[in-house]
């Protein structure tokens, strides 16, 4: 084997680059360079995007650490205390908001004359007088005749709290169909993703449920989904993850029997990641974990290069490696072409993923090219017999029936694809939570009459006052939708903090009614008429209730999610409940026609995003294949089909299988197909370059088998996205491997043609 000084210099230079990348990565890591998990970064920027990001962040901060529990059954009220104790003792709960002792009305007290509930505004002076008298003579109420003879604040709070939650015996809950559900709402002691919080909480709840099997316990909150997801993830990491790792190690050890070879394979993949990670991070400023996860799996193809090199060195220790480079280079070019074409799409998320995968492949390829030949090599006698035995798996000379079978499979698959293949962008299919948990969450929402708010309007204005006025004006469009039962309901801050114009109007109406009702009230109650001045004096100067005053108050903190202050423009959310399609289109029209108003449907937005990603990937992939076909035709002429058969055939068969099984194609299936295509291309190229070389066939088989173990086993994952990726790889890689013998053809029919090819 030649070890030219030039090669050593290149290897040294590559070592310097690797060192630089490692240092850059360490710097980024230690310097806390931003990591991103937002799905919105996948979409191209639109005028509303920063707003939506603010809204999403705000929402998750406000809600993600809350939980709700509903308990029913015999003596549930008594057992509730035991559960509360258990939750407190577990250390997973910071506060039990349902035991909140803060009196909410104190904060609103000075502003009450500017807050007029509709129920009171509609009544006349006589009704006000009657209400005042009733409050005066009913025992048990600390009704302040001086401050609030007509119970303005009570009426206001009553209207704000028009919900199913009632307090019985000092315990909040809901009653439905004769069943009393006790309610616990709590704030977690940490992040819902924190393992110890999840563990303590689920243990405390689990123990309680085990001790009281007669009780029904319903739970709602992000932490339960996160905990279930983490449990599932952990289980799968230990079963699927360890299983595949063990499988790959065993497979490679069985073939090569040299730990050094294994290490060299790992080295090439590791340097691919070391090359790609810091550069992508640096190029894009942030690193999106979603794109990273899929980019990393695409780098899995990188192991191909090292496999081909090591198989050749093991089986032909004396032969020059130069005959390998054309195939390896073409393999790299074809994969780079497929990925880099994604840069032409307008989707930032795809750019990052493509850049990461392309850089990773390049890094792994350079390591294979520059470092691996320099590593000492010791062959093992067991490798050759394995390759020889594998080499017998070839098409016989008279292979007509095989070809007919293949043709039939191809035709059936194409027909199925054309007639039955459907895309699927339904996010629900991707929800990793168990149906039981989703059902519980839904039951809680139904009982509390609060369906999950995935939709909202974002309103912006120049200042807070204009924004409140804008929100209040929206009532004219939204109330009819609610009255027609097209929209379940909605919430915005102007309901709690009316704009100043409305507060002025309210105060004027209150003054008017005070003037009429107070003298009569005093007269009826037998109180001195002189008290009238005392009663009306608080109305002379009444401060405005402002958003900040309300949001800073204990009761107003719950509205924090509705108001996005602290950045320009001032923005607010209108949280929307369930809406029918007509209401949705009305909301969209409203947003389109109103300047500074945006409609956002979280689920629909992500679904649409997935659809766009899926369409873009398919389109550019098809284009890349056409381009590659041209390159292959230039190099291989009439043998070009041999290169294309394993990757394209595998994709056709996989899609045919999914069509036959009625599986909708999601973005994750497509990402799996990218991997299948990459590995299939390498297989096609090498089986065409070296049709009679057992080393190439061994490397192809090992590449398919290790990728099958690494990604195909994900088919057994209960997480839908991983399951889809897995089933695709399982079917596609198996098909790809089975198609290689067709590419290779019968033995010794096509002599190796690239003896003249040199790499340098």
């Amino acid at each position, binding site marked *: 084997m030649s070890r030219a000084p030039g090669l050593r210099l290149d290897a040294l230079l590559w070592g310097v680059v690797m060192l630089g990348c490692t240092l850059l990565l360490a710097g980024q890591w230690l310097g806390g360079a931003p990591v991103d998990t937002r799905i919105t970064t996948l979409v191209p920027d639109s005028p509303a995007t920063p707003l939506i990001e603010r809204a999403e962040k705000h*929402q998750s901060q*406000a*809600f993600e650490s*809350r*939980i*709700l529990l509903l308990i029913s059954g015999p003596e549930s009220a*008594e057992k509730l205390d035991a559960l509360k104790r258990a939750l407190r003792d577990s250390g997973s709960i910071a506060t039990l*908001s*349902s*035991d*909140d*002792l*803060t*009196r*909410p*009305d104190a904060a609103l007290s000075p502003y009450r004359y500017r807050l007029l509930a509709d129920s009171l505004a509609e009544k006349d002076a006589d009704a006000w007088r*009657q209400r005042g008298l009733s409050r005066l*003579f*009913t*025992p*048990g*109420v600390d*009704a*302040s*005749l001086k401050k609030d003879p007509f*119970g303005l604040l*009570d009426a206001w*709070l009553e209207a*704000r*709290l028009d*919900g199913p*939650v*009632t*307090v019985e*015996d*000092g*315990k*909040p809950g809901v009653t439905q169909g004769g069943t009393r559900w006790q*309610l616990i*709402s709590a704030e977690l002691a940490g992040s819902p993703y924190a393992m110890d919080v999840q563990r303590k909480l689920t243990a405390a709840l689990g123990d309680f449920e085990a001790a009281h099997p007669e009780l029904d316990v319903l739970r*709602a*909150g992000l932490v339960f989904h996160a905990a279930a997801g983490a449990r599932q993830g952990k289980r799968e990491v230990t079963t699927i993850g360890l299983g595949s790792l063990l499988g790959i190690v065993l497979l490679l050890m069985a073939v090569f029997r040299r730990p050094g070879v294994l290490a060299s394979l790992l080295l090439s993949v590791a340097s691919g990641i070391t090359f790609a990670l810091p550069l992508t991070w640096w190029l894009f400023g942030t690193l999106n974990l979603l794109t990273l996860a899929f980019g990393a799996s695409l780098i899995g193809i990188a192991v191909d290069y090292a496999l081909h090199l090591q198989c050749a060195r093991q089986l032909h220790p004396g032969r020059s490696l130069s005959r390998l480079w054309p195939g390896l280079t073409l393999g790299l070019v074809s994969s780079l072409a497929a990925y880099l074409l994604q840069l032409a799409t307008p989707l930032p998320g795809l750019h990052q993923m493509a850049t990461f995968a392309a850089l990773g492949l390049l890094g792994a390829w350079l390591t294979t090219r520059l470092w691996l030949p320099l590593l000492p090599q010791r062959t093992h006698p067991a490798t050759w017999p394995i390759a020889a035995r594998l080499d017998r798996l070839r098409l016989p000379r008279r292979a007509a029936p095989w070809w007919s079978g293949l043709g039939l499979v191809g035709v059936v698959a194409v027909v199925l694809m054309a007639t039955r293949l459907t895309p699927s962008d339904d996010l629900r299919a991707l929800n990793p939570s168990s149906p039981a948990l989703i059902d519980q969450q839904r039951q*809680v929402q139904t009982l*509390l009459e*609060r*369906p999950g*708010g995935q939709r909202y309007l974002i309103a912006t204005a120049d200042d807070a006052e204009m924004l409140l006025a804008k929100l209040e004006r929206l009532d004219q469009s939204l109330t009819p939708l609610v009255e027609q039962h097209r929209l379940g309901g909605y*919430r915005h801050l102007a309901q709690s903090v009316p704009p100043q114009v409305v507060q002025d109007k309210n105060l004027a109406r209150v003054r008017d009614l005070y003037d009429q009702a107070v003298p009569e009230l005093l007269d*009826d*109650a*037998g*109180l*001195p008429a002189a*008290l009238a001045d005392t009663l009306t004096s608080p109305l002379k100067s009444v401060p405005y209730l402002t958003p900040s005053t309300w949001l800073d108050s*204990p*009761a107003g903190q*719950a*509205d924090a999610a509705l108001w996005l202050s602290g950045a320009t423009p001032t923005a607010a959310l209108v*949280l929307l*409940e369930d809406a029918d399609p007509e209401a949705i289109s009305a909301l969209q029209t409203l947003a389109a026609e109103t300047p500074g108003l945006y409609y956002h449907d979280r689920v629909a937005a992500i679904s649409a995003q997935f659809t766009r990603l899926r369409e873009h990937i398919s389109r550019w992939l098809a284009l890349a294949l056409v381009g590659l076909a041209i390159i292959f035709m230039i190099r291989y002429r009439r043998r070009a089909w041999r290169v294309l058969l394993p990757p394209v055939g595998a994709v056709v068969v996989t899609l045919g299988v999914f069509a036959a099984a009625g599986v909708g194609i999601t973005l994750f299936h497509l990402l799996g197909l990218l991997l299948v295509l990459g590995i299939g291309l390498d297989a096609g190229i090498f089986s065409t370059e070296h049709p009679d070389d057992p080393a190439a066939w061994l490397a192809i088989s090992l590449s398919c088998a290790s990728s099958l173990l690494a990604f195909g086993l994900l088919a057994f994952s209960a997480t839908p996205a991983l399951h889809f990726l897995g089933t695709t790889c399982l079917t596609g890689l198996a098909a790809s491997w089975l198609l290689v013998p067709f590419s290779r053809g019968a033995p010794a029919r096509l002599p190796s043609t690239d003896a003249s090819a040199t790499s340098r």
Partner: protein
Amino acid sequence: MLLIRHAALAVALTLVAAAPAAQAEDASAAELPAIELSQCARFTQEREMADLDTTLKSTGYFLRRDDALIWQTTRPVDDRVRLAADNPDLPRALKVMLPVLTGLLDGNWEALQEHFAVKRPDAERDTPDAWQARLVPLDDAVAERLERIDAAGGERVETLKIRFANADRITLRLTPADCATLAAETETP
């Protein structure tokens, strides 16, 4: 998300009398005088309003009907309130005070001890015919509104003095009455 926020708000706002079931150590239920349930009674009520330095007197009667307590003021005004958890027109504060009020009228010490420490200021001199008890809220939320309740009576509760945190006071004096007569009065107001 929306539902959590809303429920939290609702709970925060409605929860004025949520009390942990800590038992008062001051007097056990067994030591407290047995009181007959007042199905109905006539009352005189004095409401002392500290900030107005005025006392408001009223008279009337109450009686039980189904799950509700009908509170009928006859003087100085004619006003009837149906005290029941399902009455949407009741002030929220009163709704949560309702179990306390009915517990007092029923002499249901066990129920009251969930919310109050029941003390016997003059236990030695108390007899079944003449006793006194002082109820101090266990729970901060109740204590924020209510300072204490003094109850006195014999076979039945006869006087209730409710002292609110804002220094207002309500004194209720109850006299037994014939329920049928009151019921008839209620039917023909």
